[in-house]
């Protein structure tokens, strides 16, 4: 159902003002798969995601979609292919769930074209996928954190994009709700081949749901590959300066990181020094 794309970050240097936070990242997003960007706090992973969504413009390098720089594409056209759910979106006070999800149809509407039956169907489908049809008349203000997050994801789904970027979609959620949201997203990936790229904090959750992991450290991409191949004790030390044991999950055979103890007052190994790519095994 979904069209395959070539979605590439080409040596992007991104920052706020003049201070670069991301230093020349090169990566190609595998389309039709789930990719997760991991890294320590303030390593530039959200900044990279924002550049990939065109919220920030790289000062050098570029982000391209099917060979075209995304900042050169018409905004609405891009928004029909590439969707983003930011970390803390803002719901207008008192808005009903159906109306908020309906806002996802914005890029499909013109100044003159009104609400169409295709819009209605897209919203209905998004609500069904997120199991929130019965909430559709409720006000977003009244919902719990988990429900609200599902509403936001439904809005992004109603946008019907081939690629969906999510910035920490599970923050503020307990473990059960995290799993619920990520299950829904991986189902979306399976049934519609939607390419998903997200930033996640929890390394074990990331390993469980990702087809491919991008590990960042100090604004650089230091490892990428399938979780089973690149999540190693060594990488954990490098990315989080964390001593750990990596075992295999008996259920899914995905790697599980068990922290040992924190290395004390030792700067991250790749601080300022060259960041060697540990195991850039490309299995794609």
């Amino acid at each position, binding site marked *: 159902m979904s069209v395959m794309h070539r979605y590439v970050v080409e040596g992007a240097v991104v920052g*706020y003002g003049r201070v670069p936070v991301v230093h020349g990242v090169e990566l190609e997003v595998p389309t039709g798969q789930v990719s997760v960007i991991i890294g320590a706090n303030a390593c530039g992973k959200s900044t990279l995601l924002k550049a990939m969504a065109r919220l920030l413009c790289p000062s050098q390098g570029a982000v391209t979609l099917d060979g075209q720089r995304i900042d050169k594409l018409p*905004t609405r056209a891009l928004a029909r292919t590439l969707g983003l759910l930011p970390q803390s979106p803002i719901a207008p006070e008192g808005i009903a769930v159906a109306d908020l999800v309906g806002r996802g149809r*914005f890029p499909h509407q013109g100044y003159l074209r009104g609400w169409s039956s295709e819009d209605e169907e897209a919203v209905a489908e998004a609500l069904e996928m997120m199991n929130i049809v019965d909430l559709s008349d409720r006000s977003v203000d009244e919902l719990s954190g988990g429900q609200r997050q599902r509403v936001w994801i439904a809005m992004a789904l109603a946008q019907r994009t081939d690629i969906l970027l999510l910035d920490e979609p599970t923050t503020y959620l307990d473990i059960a709700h995290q799993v619920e949201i990520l299950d829904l997203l991986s189902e979306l990936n399976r049934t519609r081949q939607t390419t998903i790229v997200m930033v996640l904090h929890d390394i074990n959750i990331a390993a469980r749901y990702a087809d491919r992991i991008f590990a960042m450290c100090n604004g650089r991409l230091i490892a990428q590959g399938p979780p089973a191949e690149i999540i190693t004790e060594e990488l954990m030390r490098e990315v989080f300066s964390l001593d750990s044991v990596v075992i295999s999950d008996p259920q899914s055979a995905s790697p599980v990181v068990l922290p040992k103890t924190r290395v004390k007052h030792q700067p991250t190994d790749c601080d300022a020094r060259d960041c060697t790519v540990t195991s850039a095994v490309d299995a794609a």
Partner: protein
Amino acid sequence: MSDALAILRQGRRRRWRRRLLVTGILVALALVLAAALLMLGNTIYPAQDVFRVIMGEKVTGASFAVGTLRLPRMIAAVLAGLAFGAAGAAFQTMLRNPLASPDIIGINSGCSAAAVTCILLFNMSGAAVSAISVLAGLAVAALIYLLAYGREGASGRLILMGIGVGALMDAVVSYMLLKGSEYDIPAAYRWLTGSLNAMRMDEMGSLAIAVAILLPLALVLARSLEAVELGDETAHALGARVERTRILLILCAVGLVAFATATTGPIAFVAFLSGPIASRLVGTGKPHILQAALVGAALVLAADLLGQFAFDTRFPVGVITGILGAPYLLVLLIRLNRKGSSL
């Protein structure tokens, strides 16, 4: 799927019906109030006399009182109400804050300061003052925008800059009033409290044209506002041109406010009150600039009726609307207390 579709259609139709109903009632209310404004006065004229005057017939007595005195007053009230209401709702929705209307964040003060300076310092009068006041309103808005612009998330800073610049403008007004000669003070006061007294038909032209152009433009922009309302990041992700929408909408709203202020003076709190009242009536879901404009018109008409006939002293309309603002603040306070939502 069909279930979900049915539920959605039903809900949407219900909300749409409510919107239509509210809009209809507001139009009717504004019409009734407008008619009352034409009929009431020192002499009360029956509806048919008023109708005949409007149709261009000569009616002894009524032609002057209704045609020359009351009709311009009513038209000014409607136009200014529409302008203030629409501009207020546009600002509040765009800045996501029910307190952030143009009259609170200093744009009216800019218009007033310029006008008062022209009158008291340069002894100007008439259309020149109005023109300069419109320009000053736009200039103050541009200044606020430039000061706030720069780093990410300009809306919050925009509000604070507006309040800072507004304080400066108010100081200019105070100074001018203090230094101005006693004879010019009444002319200047017209610019400080909105008033519909002594309106003339030929003064309506510029405001009518401004409302005719800018109000529809604001309604078209409301479409993009649906995305902008969700925060800059989401709006970008939805493909909205956030910056362009914001600038155009500010221009529209400031234009409306400036032209209305130039005609009637700053009618306090109409911009501030209309948006929240409209949103209570229609419920949220879509920006409600049109409904807010109608509420604004009804508010100004009603306040003018009250100001003229409810008290021993005739109060200008701006004083009445201003007093209405105080209890609204209290209502806002109580409502927020109950709901625990943010401003």
